């Protein structure tokens, strides 16, 4: 399970992007992080695998404290966290297969990577994963020949080839049209269930979050201002997240109850974790 405690990030410019955010992600739940632009959603998700270096707090994945790791240890930790990006971030000039196989780079030696040699098992799995995301037969296409939706599927395939313990998903649908967005969200839900891994997704569209997420976290100005089920996300909660309306007693109550709920909910998934491991 992923456990984030009091995560902080202050940029060199003095911008406080995260002012101490805590949350747990367990089992195979899909947790959506929502909030207005500039709330720190991207910073939050990027601080978890330290693409952005956090300035305070801790990130723990299956008992490994990520924030204190050396460079080499961090690379090993990153293998367990599959990341999916808003702009897909595929290697545009390489083939779909190479992009998918690049998910195994954390496991192959540098010399093999240089010669672009991957294990037969990896190649076989890459074919299977491509079939699974609906891109069977496209392995020799160059990434820049694909449509946006197809590219995002390659990005997902690359992440799941890592056999991650969690998927970190940064605005996966912002560059896609509504229909393709749903397809991508369906695919992510399916993977979470089939591979039994949690998905932490940071998403702009509230309706998609409500439809797909098991739990929603609202960020505003680098602080967690909401946490609960999609059903809990009522009008006042939305106001809290998007307009910063102060509704004092209700907010504190909601936050507290959410924390309690979360702690309670984590126990069964811990079992799930052990079962899987």
């Amino acid at each position, binding site marked *: 399970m992923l456990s984030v405690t009091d995560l902080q990030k202050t940029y060199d410019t003095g911008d406080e992007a995260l002012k101490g955010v805590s949350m747990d992600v367990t089992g195979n739940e899909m947790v959506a992080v929502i909030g207005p632009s500039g709330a720190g959603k991207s910073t939050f998700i990027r601080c978890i695998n330290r693409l952005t270096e956090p300035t305070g707090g801790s990130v723990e994945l299956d008992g490994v404290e990520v924030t204190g790791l050396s460079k080499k240890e961090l690379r090993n930790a990153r293998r367990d966290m599959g990341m999916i990006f808003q702009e897909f971030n595929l290697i545009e000039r390489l*083939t779909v*297969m*190479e992009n998918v196989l690049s998910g195994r780079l954390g496991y192959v030696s540098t010399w093999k990577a240089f010669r*672009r040699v991957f294990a*037969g*098992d990896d*190649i*076989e799995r*890459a*074919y*299977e994963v491509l*079939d*699974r995301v*609906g891109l*069977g*037969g496209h*392995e*020799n296409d160059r990434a820049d020949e694909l449509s946006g939706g197809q590219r995002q599927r390659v990005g997902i395939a690359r992440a799941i080839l890592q056999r991650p313990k969690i998927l970190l998903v940064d605005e996966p649908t912002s560059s896609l049209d509504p229909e393709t967005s749903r397809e991508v969200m369906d695919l992510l839900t399916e993977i979470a269930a089939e591979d039994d891994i949690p998905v932490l997704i940071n998403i702009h569209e509230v309706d998609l979050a409500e439809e797909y997420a098991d739990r929603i976290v609202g960020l505003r100005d680098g602080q967690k201002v909401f946490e609960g089920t999609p059903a809990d996300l009522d009008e006042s909660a939305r106001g809290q997240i998007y307009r910063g309306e102060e509704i004092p007693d209700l907010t504190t109550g909601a936050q507290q109850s959410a924390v309690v709920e979360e702690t309670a909910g984590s126990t069964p998934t811990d079992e799930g974790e052990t079962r899987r491991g």
Partner: protein
Amino acid sequence: MATKQEERREWSRPTAFYNHYVKWAVYAVIAVFLLWSAWNMRISYARVVEGWNSGAGLVTSMFPPELTPFKTDLLIEGMVESIAMSVVATIIGAVISIPVAFMAAENIAPRPVYWVGRGLITVSRAFHELIIAIIVVKAVGIGALAGVIALTYKTLGFFAKLLAEEIEDIDEGQMEAVEATGANGIQTMLFGVVPQVMPRIVGLSIYRWDINIRHSTIVGIVGAGGIGSTLINSFDKYDYDFFMTIVLAIVAVVIVGELVSTYVRGRIQ
């Protein structure tokens, strides 16, 4: 879609060549060619060591730069001649390139004239300035005149090609408008075509002047005047201290020329 197969599938990267054998053959050919080239150089360890030592000697002899009053005069004289050559060649070259450009414009020139124009341009562009300079030196004798002619011809090739292309996709309407006033052929071109391309000519002249400064510093090596003559003299006399001083002076002039050219072109646009 998902056809589960029992045996493991293979994958290899598709190649830009026809197949992997062709790819490896191409790589092998390149490797063999490089080895052949290297072998032809006949580099030996002794030669490299010797070279390293004399190179180090050359660098230490550079400092301080050798500047006796006599040599300073030589340096300044040569440099002034080079810069003068570059200015004259740029102006004459730009002016002469205008008629040549018309000759080489497909939409204006009659066939035989077109081929002459294109021929002049192709020869000018294909040969290095030093080859042109060495031939001009044989024709008109050693000195700055040869340098000016060589640089002018290189300038002509550069300008005439660009201008000819510009003329080829020109606005015919403007030309016709001038023609309609009863102007003759030359007047039509001067008033209907030249104004359209004038701004580019000015910008390109300054750019070409920058290039001509670079070239004017070296054509002297084959006797076509300028600082290059001073340079090759010091080289022939084994006066390597002064040689390095001249090289540094050339670098300074070239960099200043580039800065001036960039600044002026920035101001114009």
